């Protein structure tokens, strides 16, 4: 049995006015897909910042496998309709393996491969500013994949998408996870997507946390603002 990619052990963290978690423990197996869910303000973003090493735990430990390579797809991007670069050029921004400005043949091939993986080959010349919401999200994903991560954090990647596009994006993410053994942490408010596309969920609440299989998810036990009835609005 392979060791987990990430282990969080008795983690305590809070800000001076507010304790977020005490005694948070869980681990993420290699190749697993986990939803991170919880009401707004419960500390999802803070947990990500802790996992990324941008914040230090007050007590407890976050241990990751020595070969962990993290890719993070942030929630908000400021891409206006006049944004000048094509999808391909935008994705390429994250290729920083050399100090010189031009890209090598090997880099171009790697870029081609990532674009193919994210099913953007036919659309790569399109201007990002004019691309659809789904294409934009795929481009953000592709950009993060350029550093060849084995652990991917998707921060509310589907929040602004319609149902079909959500499904398409999550199918792609699951496919990548299965094909390349990518471990995925998917921050979301969408219980349907969590149940459909991820194996387990980590629920953060004001009083504690639970990590369970999504098969065992019971909407009735979920925070009120996450329940489907609330989502329809």
């Amino acid at each position: 049995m392979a060791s987990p990619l990430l282990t969080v052990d008795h983690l305590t963290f809070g800000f001076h006015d507010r304790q977020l978690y005490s005694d948070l423990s869980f681990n993420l197996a290699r190749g697993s897909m986990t939803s991170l869910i919880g009401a707004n303000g419960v500390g999802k973003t803070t947990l990500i910042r802790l996992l990324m090493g941008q914040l230090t735990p007050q007590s407890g430990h976050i241990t990751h496998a020595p070969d962990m390579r993290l890719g993070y797809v942030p929630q908000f991007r400021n891409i206006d309709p006049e944004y000048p670069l094509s999808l391909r050029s935008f994705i390429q921004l994250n290729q920083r393996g050399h100090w010189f400005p031009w890209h090598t043949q090997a880099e171009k091939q790697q870029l081609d491969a990532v674009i193919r993986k994210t099913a953007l080959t036919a659309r790569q010349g399109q201007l990002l500013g004019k691309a659809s919401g789904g294409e934009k999200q795929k481009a953000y994903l592709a950009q993060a994949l350029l550093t060849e991560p084995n652990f991917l954090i998707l921060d509310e990647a589907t929040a602004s998408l319609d149902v079909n596009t959500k499904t398409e994006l999550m199918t792609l993410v699951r496919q990548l996870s299965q094909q390349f053994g990518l471990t995925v942490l998917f921050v979301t408010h969408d219980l349907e997507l969590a149940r459909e596309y991820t194996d387990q969920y980590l629920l953060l609440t004001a009083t504690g946390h639970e990590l369970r299989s999504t098969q065992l998810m019971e909407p009735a036990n979920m925070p009120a603002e996450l329940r489907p009835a609330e989502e329809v609005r």
Partner: protein
Amino acid sequence: MFAYDFMQNAFLASTFIALTTGIVGVFVTARGMSFLAHTLSEIGFAGAAFAVFVGIRPLDGMLLTTILSSVTVGKLSVRASRREASISAVSSLFTGLGILFLALSAKSSSYATTILFGSIIGISRADVWQLVALAALVLVTMSVAFRSLAFDSFDPVGAAAQGLRRNVIGIYFLLILAVSVSIGAQIVGSLLVFILLTLPPAVAKYLGRTLPQMLVISVAAALIGVWSGLVLGYYTNWPVTFFIAAIECVFYFAALLVHRRRD
């Protein structure tokens, strides 16, 4: 035309100026710093006037003031809510100081005209070499920092997510911008240097789809502008700056038209 030393100097200087401003300008536009470039040029005007007052070369005075103030002015312009008022205040102060230094130095008013509107006869061979050296400094450091600078300029959120040191890149770019404003002002003058830093990149933004395309278009628009400006100025005796401004505006509106058609 090229029999004259001053025309040779002017062509040489403007070629390097167009290369630098064309490339730096693409990042100025991407980072939304056009207004800041304008402020730095006014600060440069004050610096040049100060240089005249104390008896050093105007370019040295410009470099001194723009480099010293760039980081502070850059910080002032971070908060969008305060940006316009703060920058306007700084602009007014430095324009006032420039006028003060010119008055105190009691030089003829042609000096003011030269600093504000540029001059092609005023550039000596020694000035040219200084410009070339500064341009080379900008271009060489930019080629080393290129990938990080591009990422930070065209996708600040992504760059932050990948852990780029955005503060360092930001300060580096402000210094580069200060130098570019100072050298650009030598041909078109401090009042209009932002033409070269904003219009060719705007053309590139409308016509290009990749970063290399944008750089080539921006440099080409800048080069064609300054070269034609010099030639037309030589034959008509009208100010070169006028021609450069007019040509760049034509390019800009033409590119805007093409861009609109495409949509």
